């Protein structure tokens, strides 16, 4: 191996440009792959891992205490398909009427458990201690929300019940309750249901979950099961956030790898072709064919491995903020790239490079010494001599006709370079379309910026001064001030909607239909008992427009009908105010959204309101912040576009470097007969422009098709019905600019080596001959 290493090491060291190009191409490709794989792993692994660690319940089931006894439930759970069971635990639903530690008022599910451990749903008691005595409660909150200093030791007065002190915070992966008390305490809270937690041996599909639940409820009295919650609902909800981005990013990742492989193949085969003489000399010296192949593989592998290692580092650096952004608010600790992804990339990318290098290396292996030496020392006139002669006969300026003739000489190299440009243009096109769609989606989330001013009532329970104006007076004042066009009043609450899991909802009155939420199906609420729900929420819960369901607010229930599905927005569900009046007649609106007439001075409106309303009502201008999803996708799209565009440009760079190296003699001759450096630069750049033009024309439609296919598919995966209007993002001026992307990549990539070629001196060329 000594001689092989000596020859390879020298080649890597002396052919710095070639080594740097290979290293950079692999570096950016690896970074692209790390980010894409990191996101894929992060979007699925945390939930699965956390659920396995916490022995999460596959089904959380609530049974009517009056219909079935604990002993019956325990006996019924003794089924062959049940892996583990916990319970029965007494369950009560409290109504929170005061705001503590940022908890919203509304229902709070409390379960009596002796400890946080057990065979199912092991709780993560991350602050304080477990509730063991009377008057103690442990709240269910994800860790790391910074509530501990303020909330530990706070008290709750249960209406008609005991005073409860918060002694701890715990996190349940199964989301089995909002809070826990000791089994002795739950009796004082008047439980009406018993909670059972099941883990089944087969639990991957809805059908398996249904079958498992049927087996443990088969022998129970009819009506005993009040409600149940499958863990698959939680899993889908979790995946809907980051899951929405994964398909987009995988497209970028795959494009990155394909571009990288093409460029590496181009670089390596170029190294072989320009190294014919080198190969011949090695063979004449006594290198065996395998040793020659080994020299060429090592020559490529050294910079590739270095590039790969640095690429993993860069990928991790890029992925950290991007993944943190992607998982914001989803309770995923330590969002970042896992070690498995790093190892996969560290091993996989060099293998990919080796595979790409194998063909040209085998070609080097098979060349006879004489053939190689003579090919290296006798430059061929070119296979496309006829085309070059024809071009020379045209009336085009000489640098252009000569430049256009250059690529024809090496069709394989040109094909690889053009493929890289095509993929670069596909990336740019797809990323542009995706960004535009995401911007439109973001606007839909922000209701197209319809609201200019928001007024929020202060919370006396949180130590703030109580509002001076009542609800109706506030609304009246807002309407009466100059510039107000529409006013919508709302009140936020956690409700139950056909499930044991709470749902964030807002009850609205006034001009809510003008808020600008983009409807996918159905219509906005126009009467009592109507609700509209967000697209992803409906998909997660298996609900649809037209369905009638039970709405539970603080233990009071009413029937509501889903009349519309909106694309995106802050709340899962919007309900008509009449429904709130029915369930909680005394509830006041706490939020007001005001739409102003065009040209109205927002600050003046806020000042006038604040002066008239006095204390307890905070008015703020609504800043149309871009949504997290839009920011994440736009960031990813920009970074991938930049990186893949750069990789494609490097492919062009390498091709022009190789062309220059092969045609040094011709360049010397052309300069010796009077071609200026500027003309040489122009000629070398011109040689790549046709590739850019063709690459643009081929890549543009493919990028558009990719957008048309992948974006709706990704939206479906995220449980969103994407309206057709969001796919119409292409306009003639934008398409014209995108078509030029290929030319831009080609010119950018060709410029530096073209300049270097122009600076070659005739004497230098002759010396190297």
């Amino acid at each position, binding site marked *: 191996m000594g001689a092989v290493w*000596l*020859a390879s090491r020298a080649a890597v*060291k002396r052919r710095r440009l070639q080594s740097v190009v290979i290293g950079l191409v692999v570096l950016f490709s690896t970074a692209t792959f790390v980010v894409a794989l990191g996101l894929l792993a992060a979007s699925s692994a945390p939930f699965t891992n956390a659920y396995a660690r916490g022995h999460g319940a596959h089904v959380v089931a609530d049974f009517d205490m009056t219909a079935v006894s604990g002993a019956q439930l325990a006996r019924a759970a003794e089924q062959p398909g049940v892996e583990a069971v916990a319970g029965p635990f007494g369950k009560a639903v409290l109504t929170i009427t005061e705001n503590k530690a940022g908890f919203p008022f509304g229902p709070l599910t409390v379960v009596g458990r002796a400890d946080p451990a057990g065979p199912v749903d092991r709780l993560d008691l991350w602050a304080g201690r477990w509730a063991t005595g009377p008057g103690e409660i442990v709240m269910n909150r994800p860790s790391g929300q910074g509530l501990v200093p303020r909330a530990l030791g706070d008290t709750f007065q249960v209406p008609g019940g005991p005073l409860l002190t918060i002694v701890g915070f715990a996190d349940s992966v199964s989301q089995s309750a909002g809070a826990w008390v000791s089994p002795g305490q739950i009796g004082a809270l008047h439980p009406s249901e018993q909670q059972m937690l099941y883990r089944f041996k087969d639990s991957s599909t809805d059908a398996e979950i249904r079958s498992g639940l049927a087996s443990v409820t088969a022998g129970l009295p009819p009506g005993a099961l009040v409600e149940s919650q499958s863990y698959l609902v939680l899993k889908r909800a979790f995946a809907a956030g980051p899951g929405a981005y994964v398909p987009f990013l995988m497209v970028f990742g795959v494009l990155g790898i394909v571009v990288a492989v093409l460029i590496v193949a181009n670089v390596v085969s170029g190294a072989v072709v320009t190294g014919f*003489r*080198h190969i011949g*000399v090695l063979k004449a010296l*006594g290198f*065996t064919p*395998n040793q020659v192949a080994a020299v060429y593989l090592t020559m490529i592998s050294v910079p590739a491995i270095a590039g790969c290692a640095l690429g993993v580092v860069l990928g991790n650096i890029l992925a950290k903020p991007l993944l943190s952004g992607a998982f914001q608010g989803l309770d995923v600790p330590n969002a970042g790239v896992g070690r498995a992804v790093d190892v996969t990339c560290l091993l996989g990318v060099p293998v990919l490079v080796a595979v790409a290098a194998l063909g040209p290396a085998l070609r080097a292996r098979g060349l006879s010494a004489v053939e190689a030496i003579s090919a290296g020392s006798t430059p061929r006139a070119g296979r496309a001599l006829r085309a070059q002669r024809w071009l020379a006969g045209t009336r085009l300026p000489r640098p252009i006709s000569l430049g256009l003739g250059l690529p024809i000489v090496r069709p394989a190299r040109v094909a690889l370079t053009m493929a890289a440009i095509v993929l670069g243009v596909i990336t740019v096109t797809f990323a542009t379309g995706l960004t535009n769609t995401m911007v439109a989606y973001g606007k839909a989330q922000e209701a197209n910026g319809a609201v200019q001013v928001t007024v929020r009532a202060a919370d006396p329970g949180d130590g703030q001064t109580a509002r001076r104006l009542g609800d109706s007076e506030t609304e009246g004042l807002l309407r009466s001030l100059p510039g107000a066009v529409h006013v919508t009043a709302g009140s936020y609450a956690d409700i139950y909607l056909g499930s044991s899991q709470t749902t964030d909802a807002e009850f609205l009155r006034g001009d809510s239909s003008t808020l600008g939420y983009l409807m996918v199906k159905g219509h906005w609420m126009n009467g009592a008992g109507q609700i509209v729900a967000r697209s992803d929420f409906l998909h997660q819960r298996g609900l649809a427009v037209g369905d009638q369901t039970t709405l539970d607010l603080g233990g009071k229930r009413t029937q509501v009908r889903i009349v519309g599905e909106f694309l995106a927005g802050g709340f899962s569900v919007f309900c008509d105010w009449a429904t709130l009046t029915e369930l909680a007649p005394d509830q006041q609106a706490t939020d007001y959204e005001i739409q102003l007439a065009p040209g109205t001075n927002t600050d003046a409106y806020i000042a006038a309101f604040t002066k008239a309303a006095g204390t307890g009502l905070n008015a703020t201008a609504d800043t149309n912040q871009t949504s997290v999803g839009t920011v994440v996708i736009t960031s990813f799209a920009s970074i991938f576009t930049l990186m893949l565009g750069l990789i494609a440009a490097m492919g062009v760079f390498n091709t022009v470097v190789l062309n220059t190296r092969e045609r040094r003699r011709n360049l010397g001759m052309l300069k010796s007969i009077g071609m200026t450096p500027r003309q040489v630069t122009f000629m070398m750049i011109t040689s790549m422009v046709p590739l850019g033009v063709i690459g643009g024309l081929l890549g543009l439609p493919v990028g558009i098709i990719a957008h048309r296919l992948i974006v709706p598919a990704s939206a479906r995966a995220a449980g969103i019905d994407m309206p057709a209007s969001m796919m119409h993002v292409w306009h003639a001026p934008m398409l014209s600019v995108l078509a030029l992307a290929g030319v831009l990549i080609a010119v950018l990539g060709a410029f530096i080596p073209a300049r270097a070629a122009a600076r070659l001196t005739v004497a230098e060329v002759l010396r190297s001959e």
Partner: protein
Amino acid sequence: MLRCMSTEDDTAGRTVVRLDAVRKEYGATIALDGVSLEIRSGEAVAVMGPSGCGKSTLLNMIAGLDRPTSGTVVVDGEELGRHDEKALARLRRRRIRMIFQFFNLLDDLSVLDNVALAARLIGVPAAQARRRAVELLDELGIADRQSRYPALLSGGERQRVGVARALMNHPVLLLADEPTGALDSKAGEQVMGILMDLHRAGQTVVLVTHDRDLASRHANRLIEVADGRVVGERRLKPTQ
């Protein structure tokens, strides 16, 4: 004067090269047409002829760099046609070395590494190979150029590096393809002087040239080739 570096049994008269009815075709072109000849150890043979007559092809056949279309080539008792590429490569490492008209040095390696590489190929430890390379470069008068790269050397210096590289593994047979073709007359004379020193020390040398004067002054046998055939052969008495 250079010492005889061959470690083989160079008993005078032993056949080192034997070609029997060797024919080589490149498509429709016949480069060699039934060439038969023998070269004995210790000989300095000049192969002469006009450009394109097939003399370089003949040398490539002897070096095992190319294979004949028909006929047999035997070098140092080994019939080359029976060897695969790997075995031929091993043969070239130890027993057959070649000097080229355009030097064919590896541009990526320094002068010292170019020379030492030949020894590294046969497994000589790096330090030992470099020591021997320095000795050879010293004997050829270019030890002070050892850390330079070939591109920075003159033609004569490059060819001396080529000679040093060829001598590194004590070859049985030294082949030289127009070794002075790319050199000025002074540098050419110096290189030929080195080769003849080697011959006088017992090295078998086969020299391809189209320079009759050079051949008659340095070789002790002349083989004339024309149109791919051996058209003449005579003994010479070298004048130098």
